[in-house]
């Protein structure tokens, strides 16, 4: 009982304390008295309403684009005889693992209206001139931002749909075709209604992801003088920070996030009824025939835009003097690498900080998630459902909103954490808690309590049973959790951007600083470094767990 209380307390401090500070500050005036002034300014001022509107419509657009592309992709991978599925899933995993702000950097180099390489090719191909003809792509626009956000958000939707289709019994579709329905009819009348909740849930998750991103809007929309809520909140944090307004501006994001997740829970909850009975037989793989060509083309376009082109341009930029000039011999150089790893005094500090944060957040997060997961799944303590709720709650807190709350909670005595890595650590542990908890829950659900019971019947204590029976069985799940939290931490930007100081910079904010002075060579070098670390870690997960992440 005291133990579970302690855990509840830890979670309350992590999750609730920043949110209480947020709420209180949003209702307080500069002089400290209660006020609704912050909210009044929020609803009355076009400079707040416009970013809110932009955030809402662009997030909806990202959700829609993701559905249009990821739904057919999910169906093809789950239900057709498409060749190379394993490789395709792996590439989608790579899109998932690419930090969206990296993708945004790369797309500046590809889709800048005049110097962007794709536009340069386009102009050259048709004998056009930049500025005279309109560009093929203008990445510095709301549309460009939606495009890039969708490229790195679609894997969420794809996963929902592919996994959703995987559990829908093939017999239902078979029955339909035996009764004489043509394939399109089966797809429309049987498969589609069954997969509809997954589609809607995918849309909502994509919406939520897009809404909380800071990198792509700051990199792609600000140059076009477009603000979103995240860039707006960030601008309110420029010294002297307008904390009351920033807190109030965070509230709409929070409310929308909670509403999205409530809707999603309702939708996913309903899915259960359609899957009756035990494990179904093999899923029919529809032969695609000549349709293979357009099907593969779809994957080629999406993965080309999210992986091939961005990685290619980053690699190219890392090794040339002038990124927009032809990559001839005279343009080739190792200067960017020398600069980043020898001259640039931020690199070492940022790498060290990033690793320190990644390792500590992953370790603390995994321990906490494992304890909470165990207590909840085995229903060992009073209030286990509260624990589960608190561990999942941060899903609804956008990173930047969490950072506002943490900043408010820890910039004054007794807990003066601002300026230390500790405040960023708290942000990462809290933000990654839901991911960790879900992972551990999944691992623990697979271990039936009977195994522990058996060990206890033979006289083992609960701890002994835990150590000798359960721990070895969930080992892989725990390792996977650690690595997922580590990966989530080393790429974090939207919360870090408000919490870092010169001593506590991470790689992501260092790259953001370099962007403000257009130093693309060093950005490309750091991007490649980050991707290499990411993929090495993912290779480790798959080795340890032989588990599909996507």
């Amino acid at each position: 009982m005291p133990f579970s209380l302690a855990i509840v307390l830890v979670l309350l401090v992590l999750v609730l304390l920043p949110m209480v500070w947020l709420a209180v500050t949003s209702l307080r005036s500069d002089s400290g008295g209660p006020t609704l002034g912050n909210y009044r300014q929020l609803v009355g001022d076009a400079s707040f309403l416009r970013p809110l509107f932009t955030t809402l419509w662009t997030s909806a657009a990202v959700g829609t684009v993701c559905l249009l592309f990821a739904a057919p992709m999910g169906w093809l991978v789950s239900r057709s005889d498409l060749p190379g599925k394993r490789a395709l899933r792996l590439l989608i995993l790579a899109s998932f693992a690419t930090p969206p702000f990296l993708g945004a950097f790369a797309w500046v180099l590809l889709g800048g209206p005049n110097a962007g390489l794709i536009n340069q090719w386009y102009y050259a191909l048709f004998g056009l001139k930049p500025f005279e003809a309109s560009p093929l792509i203008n990445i510095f626009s709301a549309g460009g931002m939606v495009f890039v956000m969708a490229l790195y958000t679609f894997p969420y939707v794809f996963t929902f749909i592919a996994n959703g289709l995987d559990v829908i019994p093939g017999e239902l579709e078979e029955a339909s075709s035996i009764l004489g329905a043509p394939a399109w009819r089966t797809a429309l009348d049987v498969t589609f209604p069954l997969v509809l909740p997954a589609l809607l849930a995918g849309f909502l998750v994509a919406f939520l992801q897009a809404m909380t991103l800071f990198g792509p809007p700051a990199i792609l929309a600000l140059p076009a003088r477009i603000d979103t809520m995240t860039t707006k909140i960030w601008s309110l944090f420029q010294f002297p920070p307008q904390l009351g307004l920033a807190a109030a501006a965070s509230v709409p994001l929070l409310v929308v996030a909670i509403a999205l997740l409530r809707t999603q829970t309702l939708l996913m909850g309903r899915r259960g009824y359609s899957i009756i009975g035990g494990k179904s037989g093999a899923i029919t793989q529809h032969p695609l025939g000549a349709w293979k060509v357009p099907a593969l083309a779809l994957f080629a376009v999406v993965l080309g835009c999210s992986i091939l082109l961005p990685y290619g341009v980053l690699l190219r930029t890392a090794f040339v003097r002038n990124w927009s000039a032809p990559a001839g011999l005279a343009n080739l150089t190792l200067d960017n690498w020398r600069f980043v790893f020898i001259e640039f005094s931020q690199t070492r500090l940022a790498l060290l900080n990033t690793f320190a944060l990644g390792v500590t957040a992953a370790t603390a997060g995994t321990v906490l998630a494992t304890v909470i997961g165990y207590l909840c799944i085995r229903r060992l303590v009073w209030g286990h459902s509260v624990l589960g709720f608190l561990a999942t709650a941060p899903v609804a807190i956008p990173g930047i909103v969490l950072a506002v709350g943490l900043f408010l909670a820890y910039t004054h005595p007794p807990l003066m954490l601002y300026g230390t890595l500790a405040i960023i650590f708290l942000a990462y542990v809290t933000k990654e808690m839901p991911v960790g908890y879900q992972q551990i829950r999944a691992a623990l659900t697979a271990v039936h309590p009977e195994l522990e019971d058996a060990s206890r019947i033979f006289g083992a204590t609960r701890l002994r049973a835990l150590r000798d029976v359960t721990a070895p069985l969930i080992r892989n799940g725990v390792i996977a959790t650690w690595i997922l939290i580590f990966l989530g931490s080393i790429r974090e930007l939207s919360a870090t951007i408000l919490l870092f100081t010169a001593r506590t910079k991470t790689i992501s904010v260092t790259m953001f600083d370099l962007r403000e002075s257009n130093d693309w060579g060093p950005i490309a070098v750091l991007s490649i470094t980050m991707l290499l670390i990411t993929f090495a870690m993912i290779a480790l997960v798959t080795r340890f767990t032989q588990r599909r992440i996507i």
Partner: protein
Amino acid sequence: MTGIARLLMSGLLTWSAVAIPALAQETTQAMLDAAAKEGKVVWYSSVDVKVAEAIAQAFKAAYPKIDVDVERSGSERVFQRINQEHQSGIRNVDVVNSSDASHFLFWKQQKWLAAHTPPDVKRYAPQFKDPDGYYADWRATLSVMGYNTNLVAEKDAPKSYADLLDPRWKGKLVKSHPGYSGTSLTGTYAIVKVLGWDYLAKLAKQDVQQLQSTTATPKSIASGERAVMVDGNEYNMFIEIDRKSPVKIIYPTEGTPFVTSPTAIFADAPHPNAARVFQNFLYTVKAQQLVVDMGGARSLHPDVKEPANRTPLSKIKLLPDDPAAMLPLVGEIKKRYTELFGN
């Protein structure tokens, strides 16, 4: 403003009580030994990151026992970070360089700076240093216009700020932000004084691409992403020209904003001795010549020679900066600018 005043007051209360024993002005052996023990100097600077690191490398070559941590950002961002750190009781910065000279007036008023006159600064003209010895102009640059020579023929290139309002430049301009860059802020102040806000309101309708740093805009036109730069560092333009990038500088006929960029030591610097060794180094002929040759800046050191291919300051119509007059207007300039051009 009450909120700002309150924040600054609380910063003042916690930070002004630190007394620093008087240290020598010139670099002595005792100072060097103490500096070596401190191990490093933390330098917040707004100069282009590659120039900053080159200076740091030169310093390390001269003083191998003292490391340099460079924290580079735009002047206004540097100012915000330092004030935020002071307010939160974080001591990190030793030496600061900013291209918004009004920052130094503010910090001096707050008594956050340490008086220290590097030996070379004694020979600087009085208008380039603080009479009380708290700071001196480490470098100067101009906030120039510029264009990409592949995209704009010389005869068509704009010659003045007024020319930029021509419809043919719509969608082709790139500009830095006074909320981020001290050079841009100083330039904006000068432009407003000559042409008024009315001019900027019209410019805002030209579909200007809004970047942050005045180091970014020269790189943007060099890459061909935009054709004409409204404001950018003259020194970055010199660097681009030395690299054979297809760009040319425009000194607008209305006049070119002259931007001084002082450095100073903080009174509560965590590495006070290393800070003084570094500050002394920054003003030596060697460092100054490096900032001019490699960094493209204008030096105020009487012994420094300018490369032959650069237009001498005497041939350019300058709009001088006026930090004291600008200081009270900074908040308003940023606000009005952001209303016109966004964040």
